[in-house]
């Protein structure tokens, strides 16, 4: 008998059963679906085929994958640069101020995702704030079309996931031993060298975590491309949506979902590798952190 007189397995059982029954089994089912054919009238024809995975690499769909990867990649780079700069600035503030700044940096993250995306429609539409600001500065021409562009999708993704990057980068920055940077400076390293050789490697796990998070959530995103991007097949998430709800080709939709899961797992492995490498190479963190 253990501490509270109950076995851990017994305590974990209900939750694990829920996760297996309503996540593992359904996901395994989708994986299985991907190996069958689409029925003539929609539905599933249970004949084994690898065709669905082949179609993922069809130029039409591969193009959507590449575009999704490009959009997600651009959003990731912008979010990481902005988020790292913000986290660095927060970590450089007075200790007492840091939790407050961090709280307000993360606060928008907890408001509704749809609403945060909608806010960008309000901002970018033809009569929105940006157009009005331009008018106020004397711009007389046609309002610029900013909504329903790739740029709008990227802005929306960066906006939605920036708080997480700030959080992920702040954690290692705030734990960093300031004496390391000082030692580097004392030994003659320039500010840039100190940043590149000391601060950046030490905070790489945070950057990796933030980047993987933004990329994974962006590439599988459905709402932002649907609302800010216009077109139907903007990104993979929309393509999956379409296979299940309009095209009624579940096996192909399943193959696309599995491709998404594959990308996600690959990136998580890369992230695990990055933080592993960082932890074997880096110096001890400050004791009191």
């Amino acid at each position, binding site marked *: 008998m*253990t501490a*509270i*007189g*109950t076995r851990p397995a017994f*305590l*974990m059982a*209900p*939750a*694990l059963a*829920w*996760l*297996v029954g*309503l*996540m593992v089994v*359904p*996901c395994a*089912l*989708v994986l299985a679906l991907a190996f069958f054919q689409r029925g003539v009238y929609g539905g599933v024809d249970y004949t084994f085929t690898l065709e669905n995975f082949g179609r993922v690499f069809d130029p039409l769909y591969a193009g959507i994958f590449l575009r999704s990867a490009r959009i997600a990649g651009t959003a990731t780079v912008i979010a990481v640069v*902005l988020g790292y*700069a*913000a986290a*660095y*600035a*927060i970590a*450089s*503030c007075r200790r007492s101020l840091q939790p407050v*700044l961090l*709280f307000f940096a*993360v606060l928008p993250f*907890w*408001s*509704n*995702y*749809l*609403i*945060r995306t*909608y*806010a960008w*429609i*309000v*901002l970018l*539409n033809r*009569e*929105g*704030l940006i157009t009005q600001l331009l008018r106020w500065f004397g711009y007389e021409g046609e309002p610029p079309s900013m909504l329903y562009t790739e740029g709008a999708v990227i802005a929306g993704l960066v*906006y939605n996931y920036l708080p997480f990057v700030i*959080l992920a980068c702040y954690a290692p920055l705030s734990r*960093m031993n300031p004496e390391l940077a*000082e030692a580097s400076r004392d030994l003659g390293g320039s500010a840039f060298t100190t940043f590149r050789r000391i601060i950046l490697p030490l905070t790489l796990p945070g950057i990796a975590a933030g980047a993987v998070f933004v990329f*994974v959530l962006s590439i*599988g995103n*459905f*709402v932002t491309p649907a*609302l800010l991007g216009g077109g139907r097949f903007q990104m993979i998430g929309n393509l*999956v949506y379409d296979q*299940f709800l309009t095209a009624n080709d579940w096996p192909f939709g*399943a193959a696309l*979902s599995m491709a*998404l899961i594959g990308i*996600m797992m690959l990136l998580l492995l890369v992230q695990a590798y990055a933080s592993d490498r960082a932890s074997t190479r880096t110096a001890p963190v400050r004791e009191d952190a």
Partner: protein
Amino acid sequence: MAERSAAARRSGTAVLVLVFAFLYVPIAVLVALSFNEGGLPTVWSGFSTRWYVSLASNQDILSAALNTLVVAVASTAIATLLGTLLAIGIEMRRRRGTVLEALVFAPMIIPDIVLAVALLSFFSMLDVTMGLHTIVLAHVVFNLAFVCAVVRARLKSFDWSITEASADLGASALTTFRRVTLPVILPAVIAGALLAFTLSVDEFIIAFFTAGAGRSSTTLPMQIYSMIRFGITPEINALATIVMAVSVIALAISQRLNRGMVGQ
């Protein structure tokens, strides 16, 4: 980081001003326009609360809000119970299991569209009639993972020997849990529950796929999504403001109860 030049401090401040403007201007514009008198959704014409009044008489929105509340309360209650037990179970175990960790982490990272189509396939293959109950089943999946993460963070610093002391003094397992373990983890449990509630209130895609046909199980995010598809209206601005206010209040309470949760 100490001893920074004035220039470095100024650029740090500039970065923070820019980033906070980026984060808050869109929301501020939205909130401001929800009090706009005129019908044009983006042009200011005077202060008014008429859109909040008109919301209160919109039956579709009210029933969607009620559905959302039902789903959020039910899924939060189940997830809080299961997630807390799971957290205690995991932290009690001496061994670390990779499979277990992955299973508990997966709901937080899996693309929601994938979980959504997986559950849709699953439910339709089992011929389950979908509705609010299937949304609850689905929401518990990710909610319990988040509750578990918050409670586990609290348990990391928990001294298990006090539960042994309690058992040695003759307390039953249940008494020990009620009088020793629970008081220690209660703030985290409540914080986790509030987090789960917020996530469930806001969740759109999984609810959309597991709600089944028919308007009777439309939740608030589904309602908002279909309204946004039809274009910008001042009514959405007002609704958005209320929904954001509710989330922010829930988060603020959760933060107070569980300081440092943000750092997880």
